[in-house]
């Protein structure tokens, strides 16, 4: 079943490579603008790219602008990114420092990407893994630092808070790893990956079919107590009836949950689904005397830093599997050689965060391209809604039915050998 999906992907990969090639070509031409847009549209020959053709059409129609050109000048577009660098899910600062501009500066065959004659600049803010801080920094980026659009790089509650703000001020917002709660109605919001509600039934199938655990009493879910994860829990328990669910608080310590996992003779879970902050997960993993199989969905669990920390804690996260929007960084070259080329050109030390941001930027690039030369926020939203995008790094996106356009995930496995990182088990699958 999976093989087929994989084959499917490889077929698409050809298309993706074609896309990369066409970009390269456009760079060679030194001509952007209409031609560049058409290269996306070029995928329209394939079934999956049909929407792209439509997009091309939309572009021709000219998108309905609203005159809000905040962040857009004659030759630049400013993008704001927020992510936790501190708090319970701290990501490495350097990864963002190097990653946020990599695509925009080197994504065009080692040269800066141009979109209708404009280059892209980025601003970045630490949201401290707190929704309220996220809202503040999003306001600052959108209003003071004049970001045209915002990107949420991780953290569901923060993404929700920032998206709410963005919607109230009509600022385009793109993110990965999300809840559906309260997001479907936000008309400036676009998800770049599957939602948790979409992923968790898949995860349940994965546990049953791939890990071979069908006894619900051997499965536990540890999911942070936020309403934004309720849909994830529902999705999971809906497909896996009878699993034990623990809902620790957002600021609870992981060691307090360890007692749940290894209650000796009474209960010993084989598989534990975690949807919490990385520090909680790592602590829980380190403090539990037993070694269950950790699985999950969500961006921050899948990052290599978590894997490597988990591995040094007595190998406690060895073998954990996580659904991720992108394939593993370790295999980046296989899915987008341009990435490695850009990294070389930039002369930086890349990691999986850089890789994620690369993919997100790539998605945004296509969106901006689609919006046309007369860029404003209205035109952007208009151009994205109802369109399809395909990058080969992120899953293919189809926004014809609303803001949740993804249907594929990749499965990463925590490998402790050689420092602790993730490897790709499956790339771009639709189910198990």
């Amino acid at each position, binding site marked *: 079943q999976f093989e087929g999906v994989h084959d499917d992907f490889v077929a698409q990969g050809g298309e993706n490579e074609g896309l990369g090639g066409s970009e390269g070509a456009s760079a060679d031409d030194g001509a952007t603008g209409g031609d560049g847009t058409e290269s996306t549209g070029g995928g329209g020959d394939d079934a999956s790219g049909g929407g792209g053709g439509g997009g091309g059409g939309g572009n021709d129609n000219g998108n309905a602008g609203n005159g809000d050109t905040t962040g857009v000048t004659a030759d630049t577009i400013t993008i704001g990114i927020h992510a936790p660098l501190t708090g319970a899910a701290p990501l490495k600062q350097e990864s963002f420092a190097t990653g946020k501009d990599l695509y925009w500066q080197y994504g065009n065959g080692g040269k800066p990407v141009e979109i209708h004659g404009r280059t892209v600049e980025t601003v970045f803010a630490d949201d*401290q893994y707190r929704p*309220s801080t996220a809202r*503040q920094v999003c306001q*600052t980026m959108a209003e003071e630092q004049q970001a045209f659009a915002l990107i949420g790089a991780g953290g*569901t509650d923060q993404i929700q808070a920032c998206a709410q703000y963005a919607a109230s001020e009509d600022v385009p917002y793109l993110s990965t790893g999300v809840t559906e709660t309260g997001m479907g109605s936000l008309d400036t919001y676009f998800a770049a990956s599957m939602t948790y509600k979409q992923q968790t039934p898949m995860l349940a199938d994965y546990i049953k079919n791939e890990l071979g655990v069908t006894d619900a009493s051997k499965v536990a879910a540890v999911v942070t107590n936020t309403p934004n994860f309720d849909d994830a829990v529902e999705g999971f328990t809906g497909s896996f009836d009878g699993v034990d669910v623990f809902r620790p608080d*957002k600021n609870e310590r992981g060691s307090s949950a360890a007692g749940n996992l290894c209650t000796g003779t009474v209960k010993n879970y084989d598989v534990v689904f975690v949807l919490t902050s990385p520090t909680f997960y790592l602590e829980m993993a380190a403090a539990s005397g037993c070694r269950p199989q950790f699985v999950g969905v969500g961006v921050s669990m899948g990052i290599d830093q978590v894997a490597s920390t988990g591995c040094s804690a007595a190998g406690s996260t060895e073998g954990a599997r996580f659904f991720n929007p992108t394939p593993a960084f370790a295999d980046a070259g296989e899915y987008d050689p341009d990435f490695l080329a850009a990294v070389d050109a930039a002369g930086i030390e890349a990691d999986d965060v850089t890789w994620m941001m690369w993919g997100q930027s790539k998605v945004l690039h296509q969106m901006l391209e689609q919006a046309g030369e007369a860029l404003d926020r209205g035109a952007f939203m208009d151009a994205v809604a109802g369109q399809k995008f395909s990058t080969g790094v992120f899953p293919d996106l189809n926004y014809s039915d609303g803001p949740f356009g993804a249907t594929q995930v990749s499965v990463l496995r925590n490998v402790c050998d050689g420092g602790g990182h993730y490897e790709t088990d499956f790339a771009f699958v639709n189910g198990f």
Partner: protein
Amino acid sequence: MATATMVLTRVKVQRRFGLALRVTVVLALLVLAALPLLLGGDVWAQRISRAAIYAVIGLSINTLTGHAGQISLGHQAFVGIGAFAAAFMASRLGAPLGFGLAAAGVAGAFTAVVIGLVALRVTGLYLALVTLAFGLTAETTIFNWREFTGGGAGAFAPRPAVLASDHAFALLCLGVLGLVLYLDWRIVSTKTGRALAAVRNNERIASTLGVNVTGYKLAAFSLSGLIAGLAGGLFAHWNQIVQAMDFEFQVALVWVLMTVVGGLRSRLGVILASAFFALLPLTLPNFLSSLPWQPPFLNEAVYHVLPPFIVVVMLLVVLRFFPGGFGQLLRPATDWLAGKRKQ
């Protein structure tokens, strides 16, 4: 005789001139302070609101610690309860803002009185510990109570249409700050202030002078809680989303240090210090990144660590060199403005 008259007139003229000068200076300072609000756009309006809210919090701590001499290391709990109460009123019950703020104040006051009842039995260092433990418990228990606070996602506190603009909201915050300032001023200049001074210094002496020590302590707790809750309500609507982690117990520590740095019982000092620490995390990153030379190991991640770092450095300097805080540093200027002269 004639010379005497002349001297007198000159003194009078000088006095009058001095008064005019002082009024001018005060007005100029106020205008200067208002400039960001007028010219700074929404972002600065939000910052001014935040500064005002912090100042209200500082004055709330000042009421309890400065006037009544009761230490609280869990003040963030009172503010947080106010914030969640306001958010609850606004988002769950759809109540008008006024009710929300009232509920916030009442919730803060109620919680503070409960802690105040404990404070009657334990003193000094133990009270510090109790309030700290309470703050921690509030953070993890009350603020994570999902029905009330929305769990990890936080609670939303939308603003009513009239106050939807950040400028209007800033004016509301400044208004509340003005009100609290007035209260504080009246406290110190009436018997209440003197009674609290006695309670703070020597409870036995206070009681033999007819001061109801228990009553005044509880009153100080409830007033402080009321103001803190009110500040919390404003905070909720300021950010429009409130979350348990906004009220971590470290926040209370920073607030206490901030108030001490400002100078206990110095209104101006407390306001300045509070405003400073309110704006620091918002303005520091952009300020630092605009510097021509970037200090080493400064990165995005440390920006939110820097404020406590700075507050502590200031605290240690203050404690060692001018224990009266900003207030003491500003004393000559404020004395001049108030028209006091040295004998």
